[in-house]
């Protein structure tokens, strides 16, 4: 089906040529293996810059990765985003609005100060009060109405309403020391003196946008990391990062560009680690207008009297017209899996029988005719061109698939800064965007992406298409009050099913996360994309 000449077009696009040239430049040479001496130092090359060492200043995944190395939370998540104990050994809901956490005894901060429940209370008080924070962690502490310190290692958290996500949310909040950090400023963290935590590494030096150096902490309560020292370098250019690995300047890199994957896989001196991630790439539709939508017209270019995207049959037809397998194989070079819902298999609230929509151009045409568009219509599909792997090529492919199903599609890719502002203002009719479910469970995307936009409930903040389905909202509300995991999972599954049977958003694929390293290293890949030194060890060492 895909051999149509149209497919040649996106291969000729400038951006693609540029990237391909870079990739080819990197891989055009084969090289001599450098001798491998496993010093106690690990040098890592990461693709995204760390903007702050203050764990409560700017919520951003590169910052979280570094925070995990220096600090610890009460809870944390494993490679598959399941919540596991960290500074808290156990927790339970003792009544509908009270969570009790039992803390790990004998934990010390890097400077020797002892960790107690008072430090947790101090941390929760600091989180909402970090000056100038562009993205605060207060969203995780806001449900807490009262912190009760029962004894040095027991803590009770009171909430106004039942709040089942407390252990999940607290994985994002790094615990500081009441004595050390009483007057701590963000600058103090960045400069070094305040970068004191309970994590596996101590920070030795930090050069903004360049590198961070760590040393193993002997006070760490968990498994001892394999490295005495870690050099964490930020190399944002994809080709340069790959070259640094090939030259032996760094030993592991993240965000391997999909165009380099095949070559790196065949390189005898390298090893790859890979995991299905939590980032869904999807299309969002304009649900905010019942009359004409700005980028939808009839075949003569005149506005339609009503917005066809409000009709579930049209949305389903557009979903059927997309060949997800082709996008995954040809555009993403296999670095993704086709998606039919928010999360990959094995996640909490994954719906087993909600499979990706089957590719069926003829079926799509029939459905469009049934919805009153036997001749189709015209639409402009928007998307970013610098945000997600191959983003602009994906929307070009979809544009051709939709056109084949009778919906004549123009494609417009823009830089993220411009695009996301327009999408947030409901300026667009249909657009590609992504969502990383860091919590690894369904309530997070349901609340943020598909719940009705509601400021007071804090729902739908990233629902840029303004989808709204009262039935889904009702089930979600029920789930958000349900403390029993099994019952909550069933409710979340029900809400997820409502969204995708209605094609509230149109799921495309879930990205895979890939790391490349020198042979002889082993790495535990993480679904949440974090690159941390304690996930890397010599392959010979036991896990």
């Amino acid at each position, binding site marked *: 089906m895909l051999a149509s000449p149209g497919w040649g077009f996106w291969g000729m696009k400038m951006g693609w040529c540029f990237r391909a040239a870079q990739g080819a*430049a990197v891989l055009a040479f084969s090289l001599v293996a450098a001798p491998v001496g496993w010093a106690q130092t690990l040098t890592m090359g990461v693709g995204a810059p760390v903007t702050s060492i203050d764990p409560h200043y700017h919520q951003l995944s590169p910052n979280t990765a570094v925070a995990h190395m220096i600090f610890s939370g009460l809870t944390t998540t494993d490679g598959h985003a399941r919540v596991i104990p960290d500074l808290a050994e156990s927790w339970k809901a003792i009544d509908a609005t009270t969570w009790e956490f039992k803390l790990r005894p004998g934990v010390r901060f890097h400077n020797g100060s002892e960790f107690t429940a008072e430090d947790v209370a101090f941390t929760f008080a600091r989180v909402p009060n970090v000056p100038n924070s562009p993205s605060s962690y207060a969203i995780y502490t806001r449900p807490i109405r009262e912190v009760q310190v029962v004894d040095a290692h027991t803590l009770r958290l009171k909430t106004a309403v039942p709040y089942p996500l407390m252990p999940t949310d607290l994985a994002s909040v790094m615990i500081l020391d009441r004595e050390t950090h009483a007057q701590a400023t963000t600058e103090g963290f960045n400069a070094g003196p305040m970068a004191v935590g309970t994590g596996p590494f101590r920070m030795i030096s930090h050069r903004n946008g360049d590198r961070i150096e760590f040393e193993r902490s002997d006070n760490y309560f968990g498994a001892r990391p394999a490295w005495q020292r870690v050099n964490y370098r930020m190399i944002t250019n994809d080709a340069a990062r790959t070259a640094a690995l090939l030259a032996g*300047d760094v030993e592991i890199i993240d965000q391997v560009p999909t165009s380099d994957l095949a070559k790196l896989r065949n390189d005898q001196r390298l090893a790859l680690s890979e995991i299905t991630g939590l980032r869904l790439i999807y299309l969002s539709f304009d649900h905010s207008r019942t009359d004409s939508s700005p980028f939808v017209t009839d075949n003569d270019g005149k506005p339609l009297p009503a917005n066809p995207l409000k009709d579930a049959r049209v949305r389903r037809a557009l979903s059927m017209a997309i060949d997800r397998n082709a996008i995954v194989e040809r555009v993403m070079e296999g670095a993704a899996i086709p998606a039919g819902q928010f999360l990959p298999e094995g996640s909490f609230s994954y719906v087993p029988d909600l499979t990706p929509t089957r590719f069926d151009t003829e079926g799509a045409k029939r459905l469009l005719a049934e919805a009153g568009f036997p001749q189709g219509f015209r639409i402009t599909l928007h998307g970013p061109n610098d945000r997600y792997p191959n983003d602009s090529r994906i929307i070009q492919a979809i544009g051709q698939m939709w056109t084949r199903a009778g919906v004549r599609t123009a494609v417009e890719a823009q830089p993220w*800064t411009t695009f996301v502002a327009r999408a947030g203002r409901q300026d667009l009719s249909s657009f590609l965007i992504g969502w990383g479910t860091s919590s690894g469970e369904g309530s997070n995307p349901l609340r943020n992406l598909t719940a009705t936009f509601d400021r007071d409930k804090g729902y739908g903040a990233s629902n840029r298409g303004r989808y709204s389905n009262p039935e889904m909202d009702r089930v979600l509300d029920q789930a958000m009050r349900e403390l029993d995991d099994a019952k909550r999972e069933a409710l979340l599954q029900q809400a997820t099913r409502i969204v995708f049977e209605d094609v509230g958003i149109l799921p495309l694929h879930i990205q895979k996360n890939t790391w490349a390293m020198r042979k002889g290293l082993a790495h535990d890949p993480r679904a949440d994309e974090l690159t941390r030194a304690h996930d890397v060890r010599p392959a010979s060492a036991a896990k």
Partner: protein
Amino acid sequence: MTVFLLRRLLQAAGVVLVMSLLVFLGVYAIGDPIEILISPEADQIERERAIKALGLDLPLWQQYLVFLGNALRGDLGRSFVFNEPALRLILDRMPATLELAIGATLAALIIGLPLGLYAGLRPSSPVSKGILAGSILGFSLPTFWVGLMLIMVFAVQLGWLPSTGRGETVTILGMRWSFLTRDGLAHMLMPALNLSLFKISLVIRLTRAGVRETMLMDYVKFARAKGLSPARITFIHVFKNILIPVVTVVGLEFGGTIAFSVVTESVFAWPGMGKLIIDSINVLDRPVMVAYLMIIVLMFITINLLVDITYSLLDPRVRLEGKS
């Protein structure tokens, strides 16, 4: 001279003012910093808090006036992303860029001047033709490609030089410099060469053209008739006269290198100002963008001033006066 300097300073103030206004309007037109900076999981209440915290809730003209008031007191604002003073962020990165730019400019002069001189004095020799052909490559090859090729050959293939990053540094006057250590120099070599390639070609061409033109002048013929040695004619009479265009162009190029060596700094992961500005543009970190461009404007004005003063030293006919 004083009038001349005063005029220049006034001009500088005017340009800086216009610049800051343009950046303010530009960022406003491109997009919304909050959309870029905020965690996607933030709810509406958190968004409103962040907008207020960064002062983006005020009308644009009010934000601009607040900025102007602070700028007059020497405070160019704090970075949205790093929560550190924008000026300090830029000054922290400045030594890295300065040493790269100075290295590249020196290389351009040391390599470009002799080659250009030779090509100008012996226009028909095959070596001169080779030099000219080489300079065409220097003009036309894109920097990102040359940079990657340098990395592939000297770092990946031969393993002689480190591929990316800045090497060991020593602290002098509170700033970190890498050109004083062996490791630092090794790291600097490729990015500096990559930056200088275009400049070398430029200097070769300017010098050659100047030499060829000057050699036909009456005073050169006269000097020759007077029996002066060819070396004296070349290095005293010709050289001084061809330097004027070279100084102008190298001066401006030097400014351009400091301000906009973005591509080279990205390819070599060089932690300089160019990388800071491109990262700041990507996240619409307005305070850093405004401060950066203001510094760049001041720098260009200073360089132009120095160029003008150098003129007057090189050519006694040029006088620095208030009237233009």
